[in-house]
């Protein structure tokens, strides 16, 4: 039987190192390793590589301080937010914006106020103009909410032209 044929499959050997083979397989490999120096060397090399890799990972992760990392990240976020807030403040409260906006708001408000004042109010006093003229043409001049009394008949009519309400009643004699 040639020597190479008795070697263990490298994948199987790797699984053996990681403890991922069945117990009977592990026993068989242990027996083989006691007789085969090549396979034993392969196992040792593999274990050495694995331990080096683990040491490297452990060394690098031990250098990371999680709380300091979190603090740094939050500080950077705060710094960025502060910059944005500063920019917004500078934009809103700069005289280039504030003065024209205030002036424009005052002018718009005055225009609205005076248009209201001269459109709806008479110069003699607070007497509305437009609502009456428009309403008279479309709506009855008066709405009768209720009536009562000693009457024999009550009629509600409108004048034909200006829609003025007529309330007609006959007194009891």
């Amino acid at each position, binding site marked *: 039987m040639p020597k190479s044929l008795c070697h263990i499959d490298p994948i199987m050997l790797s699984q053996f190192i990681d403890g991922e083979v069945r117990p009977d397989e592990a026993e068989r490999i242990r027996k083989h390793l006691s007789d085969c120096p090549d396979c034993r060397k392969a196992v040792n090399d593999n274990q050495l590589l694995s331990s080096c890799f683990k040491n490297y990972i452990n060394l690098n992760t031990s250098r990371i301080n999680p709380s300091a990392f979190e603090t740094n990240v939050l500080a950077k976020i705060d710094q960025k937010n502060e910059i944005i807030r500063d920019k917004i403040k500078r934009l809103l409260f700069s*005289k280039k914006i*504030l*003065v024209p906006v*205030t*002036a424009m*708001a*005052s002018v718009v*408000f*005055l225009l609205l*106020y005076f248009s*209201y004042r001269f459109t709806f*109010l008479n110069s003699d*006093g*607070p*007497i*509305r103009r437009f*609502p*009456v003229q428009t*309403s*008279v043409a479309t*709506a009855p*001049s*008066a*709405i*009768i*909410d*209720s*009536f*009562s*009394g*000693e*009457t024999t008949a009550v009629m509600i*009519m409108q*004048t*034909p*032209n*200006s829609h*003025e*309400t*007529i*309330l*007609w*009643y*006959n*007194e*009891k004699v």
Partner: protein
Amino acid sequence: MKKFKIKIVLTIGKTLLLLASFSIMMTAISQASQFDISVTTILASHGKNGVDSRIGRQIKELQAAFRYSSYRLVNKTHKRLVPGQTGKAPLPGGRVLAITPLGVAGNRAKLKLAVFKNGQPTFQTIIQLLNRGRIIVGGPQHSGGVIIFIISNSF
């Protein structure tokens, strides 16, 4: 100096805003605070007296609505009332018209009208009359004709 100018502009703006708000508020309050009410009393009949020239433009509406041949002005009464206050207007035949403004509903004055005859109430109604609008109330018989009273208001 620049900051001082900005402060002045802001102060002027705020003052104008306050003044305008105050003025609008006072106007709104004064609108509902008093009612100018006029009552024109007319005696309409089928007589031969024709039309009383003192009635004025209102006669056209009356003639369009009624078929009386004679319209005689009996009296005109004007009252300036506050809400809840009652004003009285004399009507023919020992009658009295009592008007009480109750308030404002939109663009209408809410009025309570009551007609008394010899001190006894004969007819009562609550109406919503347009601002600067008129209502024609009529029907009571008197001296062979009918009494018509035209109520107008502004607030």
